């Protein structure tokens, strides 16, 4: 089933399917029900990173040096870990400024510089050409190889076809046509290509499944699992070094580190990665899933690379078959026709995905940052008078797509055959890495300037041209090879592969080292040497401080001048179409709450800023700046003015922040004051209650003493027995009065904190035994039985012995009071409970109703009084007990039901009150 027509039909069917998916997604997007607004689709679309390089090239690289393919995927994993800091910032900036491409991003950061945007675009296009040629080479090779079936023949050995019959050219033209239909069918104001993203996500699935399928087949079908492949490789003298390969690699660990850094930068700054990650991003939160799913995808697609590489070398021996084609030639050699077709489609999907997104990204750059700024400056074109320019924009983009693919083809013809796939791709990686200093410096360092960025980019790119691109042409025979061997004009120091005598490194490490040194050095040096312009200074601030909350309208304050609403409206309409322009302006005015302005009125700064941002979303920041400047009269702000405005803005932020803090503090203070006030009022009330209760409690015994004294005084003739009874009442009441006054004094000392505490280690068991013994007389008098259930010895607690005795006495005397004489039983028990000792005093008296459980501990509350009608005791004992127990960090409470007796319990923490306070 590998006849030519089947392969061709399958290819077109696959491309047709892609187009159908894209069409469907576009329809859904127009209907407002986006299919790509999902973090999973987003993550899959980011996997456009894996191209034909990954699909075919990784195996080729692994077959020659073992692990050399891995840094390309481990680097991005490390970089993606930093995305939460770096990429989130880029996303936020790009959303605010409606960034359309990497060139737009860099140009916008450095004062919307058209020149800088143009330089970035040129570097991107030239730098990416090798990468595109790699895809063309991979696809056309795969096609050629499949057509030779059942022979296994290498395309290089078939000789170079004339240009017009060259498969690679057909592939290039076909892909150009496909990309045009795909990515530039219409001009989207937001520059979102929903259909493209959906198709790319689908392609990511296809290439992963195809690669895993062939990998699994080789591992378990052709061989007997991983172990089998590796053990056979170990017994092969040529393959054995690849099992511990790092020593043998040229440059060893240095090369490894540079490859990792290179791919860390590539995942950020390849134009297509910027396109899918930033420009096509629908929601910042999608980044969360992508941060682990993209690395996981890379891990998955790499698992079978080594088995395929070793399997291919074991199967084909050495030299006959190019290792870059093992993925395809292994199933072909084993007559697995369906699998071979699947692999071919997988490779096609890897290559087309890359080419589509890359050329769309590059064509947007070329249009917005290279061609339009030039055209807009050419007055004789009279572009300012054309009513609708969207057709022109589309035309430029389509032309750029064709041109870029053709240039990619030219590079393939000129230099493609001299290198393996991975080596071609790495040249492009090194080119886009040149964007890193300007882009990363731009979002974290306000000091970076336009001139610095220009100098850095130019220096880095020049070194790249000299150390990587030049040798590629020399090796292909288009430049004299002597250039590499003797240096230009025979100057040894300038040899492109050993600049200034630095030899012994592999080509990429050598080029990266020199170009990064030149790039970063020039960027920093020139940045600090010259004073930036006003616009640059402003943009620097906006980019670096993007996460600071800027008050509404701050950006617009940087503009001063006069403009008219119809002029701005016409400008928007020329690029977005009349309907879209009217719609966004109406939306803008509704959001600001301003009434729709009558035609002819002057536009304010905020509106001018809005129109410029909208335009930037279509033609890029630099072109938008030129366009807006052409229809409004502006006054240039000086650097000093911009600085003042920025300072003001940041001061406003600081002030509002401080104000917020102050008002929060005030609120807190008010809350505390109110609480304190309530507490004071409560205390006041308690004091009043206390005084009146105390007077009442004091008056009761006094009244009875006075009454009986008067009887004795007025009736001297009372008989002796009667007299003695009255006297004993008077004595009893006096005792009660004394006790009451003592307790009140005690309480006042406790409450005021003046009470003296003599703390020592107390053996609670001993204390209970002593107290029970001391009160046994009382119990006998009332005919109440007492039982002690004291467990085994317990640790001693830190407390005041006398106070604890006071508590126990109180509880015991209460128990006696409320027990029925004759059949009352009081049980005292002691046990260890967690980090505390617990004492229970249980009686079988009348009990306490639940609503009184808390009240009995309050001052002058007497359950007894309420229950039996006669007051017994002062009503202060339990309150004092509670204060004592709580002083030692313990707790006292009662459990009871009426008629079933009451159980008073208290605890004392073992470690003293400090320990409990810590635990609490």
């Amino acid at each position: 089933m590998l006849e030519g027509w089947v392969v061709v039909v399958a290819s077109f069917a696959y491309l047709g399917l892609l187009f159908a998916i894209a069409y469907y997604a576009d329809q859904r997007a127009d209907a407002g029900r986006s299919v790509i607004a999902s973090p999973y689709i987003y993550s899959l679309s980011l996997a456009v990173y894996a191209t034909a390089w990954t699909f075919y090239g990784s195996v080729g690289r692994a077959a020659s040096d073992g692990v050399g393919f891995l840094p390309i995927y481990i680097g991005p994993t490390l970089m993606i870990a930093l995305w939460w800091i770096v990429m989130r910032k880029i996303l936020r900036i790009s959303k605010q400024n409606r960034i359309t491409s990497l060139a737009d991003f860099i140009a916008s950061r450095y004062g919307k510089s058209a020149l800088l945007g143009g330089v970035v675009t040129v570097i991107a296009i030239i730098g990416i050409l090798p990468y595109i040629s790699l895809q063309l080479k991979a696809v056309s090779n795969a096609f050629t190889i499949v057509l030779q079936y059942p022979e296994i023949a290498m395309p290089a050995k078939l000789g170079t076809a004339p240009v017009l019959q060259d498969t690679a050219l057909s592939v290039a033209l076909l892909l150009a046509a496909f990309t045009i239909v795909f990515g530039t069918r219409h001009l989207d104001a937001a520059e979102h290509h929903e259909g493209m993203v959906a198709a790319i996500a689908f392609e990511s699935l296809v290439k992963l499944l195809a690669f895993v399928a062939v990998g699994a087949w080789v591992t378990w079908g052709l061989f007997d699992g991983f172990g089998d492949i590796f053990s056979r490789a170990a017994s092969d003298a040529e393959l054995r070094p690849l099992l511990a390969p790092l020593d043998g690699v040229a440059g060893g660990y240095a090369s490894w580190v540079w490859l990792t850094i290179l791919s860390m930068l590539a995942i950020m700054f390849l134009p297509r990665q910027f396109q899918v990650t930033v420009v096509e991003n629908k929601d910042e939160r999608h980044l969360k899933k992508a941060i682990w799913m993209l690395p996981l995808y890379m891990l998955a697609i790499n698992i079978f690379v080594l088995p395929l590489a070793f399997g291919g070398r074991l199967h084909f021996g050495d030299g006959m078959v190019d290792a870059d084609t093992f993925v395809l030639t292994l199933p072909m050699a084993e007559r697995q026709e369906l699998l071979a077709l699947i692999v071919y489609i997988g490779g096609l999907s890897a290559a087309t995905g890359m080419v589509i997104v890359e050329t769309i990204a590059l064509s947007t750059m070329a249009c917005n940052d290279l061609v339009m700024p030039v055209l807009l400056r050419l007055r004789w074109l009279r572009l300012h008078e054309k009513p609708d320019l969207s057709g022109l924009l589309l035309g430029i983009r389509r032309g750029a797509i064709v041109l870029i693919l053709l240039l990619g083809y030219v590079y393939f013809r000129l230099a493609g055959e001299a290198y393996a796939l991975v080596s071609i791709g790495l040249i492009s990686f090194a080119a886009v890495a040149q964007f890193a200093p300007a882009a990363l410096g731009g979002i974290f360092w306000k000091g970076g300037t336009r001139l610095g960025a220009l100098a850095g980019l130019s220096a880095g790119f020049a070194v790249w041209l000299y150390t990587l691109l030049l040798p590629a042409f020399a090796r292909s025979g288009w430049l004299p090879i002597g250039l590499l061997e003797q240096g230009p004009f025979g100057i040894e120091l300038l040899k492109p592969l050993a600049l200034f005598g630095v030899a012994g490194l592999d080509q990429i490490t050598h080029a990266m080292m020199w170009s990064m040194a030149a790039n970063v050095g020039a960027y920093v040096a020139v940045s600090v040497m010259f004073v930036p312009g006003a616009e640059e200074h402003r943009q620097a601030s906006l980019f670096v401080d993007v996460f600071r909350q800027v008050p509404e309208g701050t950006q617009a304050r940087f503009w001063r001048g006069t403009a008219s609403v119809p002029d701005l409206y016409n400008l928007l309409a020329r690029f977005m179409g009349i309907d879209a322009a009217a719609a966004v302006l109406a939306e803008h005015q509704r959001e600001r709450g301003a009434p729709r302005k009558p035609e002819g009125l002057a536009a304010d700064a905020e509106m001018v800023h809005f129109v410029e941002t909208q335009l930037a979303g279509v033609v890029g920041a630099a072109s938008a700046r030129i366009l807006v400047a052409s229809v409004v009269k502006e006054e240039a702000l000086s650097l000093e003015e911009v600085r003042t405005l920025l300072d003001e803005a940041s001061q406003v932020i600081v002030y509002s922040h401080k104000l917020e803090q102050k008002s929060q503090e005030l609120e807190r203070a008010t809350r505390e004051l109110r609480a304190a006030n309530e507490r004071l009022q409560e205390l006041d009330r308690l004091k009043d209650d206390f005084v009146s209760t105390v007077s009442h409690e004091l008056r009761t015994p006094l009244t009875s003493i006075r009454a009986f004294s008067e009887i004795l005084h007025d009736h001297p003739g009372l008989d002796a027995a009667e007299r003695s009874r009255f006297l004993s009442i008077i004595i009893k009441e006096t005792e009660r009065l004394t006790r009451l006054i003592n307790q009140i004094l005690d309480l006042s000392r406790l409450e005021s904190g003046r009470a003296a505490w003599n703390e020592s280690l107390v053996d609670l068991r001993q204390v209970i035994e002593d107290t029970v013994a001391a009160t046994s007389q009382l119990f006998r008098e009332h005919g109440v039985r007492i039982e002690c259930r004291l467990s085994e010895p317990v640790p001693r607690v830190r407390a005041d012995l006398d106070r604890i005795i006071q508590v126990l006495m109180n509880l015991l005397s209460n128990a006696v009071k409320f027990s029925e004489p004759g059949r009352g039983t009081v049980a005292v028990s002691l046990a260890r409970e967690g980090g505390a000792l617990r004492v229970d005093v249980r009686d079988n008296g009348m009990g306490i109703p639940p609503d009184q459980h808390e009240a009995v501990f309050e001052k002058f509350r007497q359950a007894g009084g309420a229950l039996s009608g006669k007051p017994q005791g002062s009503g202060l004992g339990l309150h004092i007990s509670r204060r004592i127990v709580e002083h030692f960090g313990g707790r006292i409470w009662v459990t009871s039901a009426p008629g079933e007796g009451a159980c008073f319990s208290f605890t004392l923490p073992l470690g003293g009150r400090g320990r409990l306070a810590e635990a609490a």
Partner: protein
Amino acid sequence: MEEFDLRAQRLAALCLLGAALFSYPLLAVFNVPATVLGIPVLYAYFFVAWGALIALMALVIERPD
């Protein structure tokens, strides 16, 4: 500052961990001609360490605040 929340710091720490895992001298330790379960030590190390790093990243990023 929102930029330097705890999650960002943890992820940055994982990046450093990854940088240490996949460079000299740790790689040299595993660059030996031996096998685990039939798989060369270095390759096994790569994929296990890589997978663990990704798992940690997922854990940090998906953990609710």
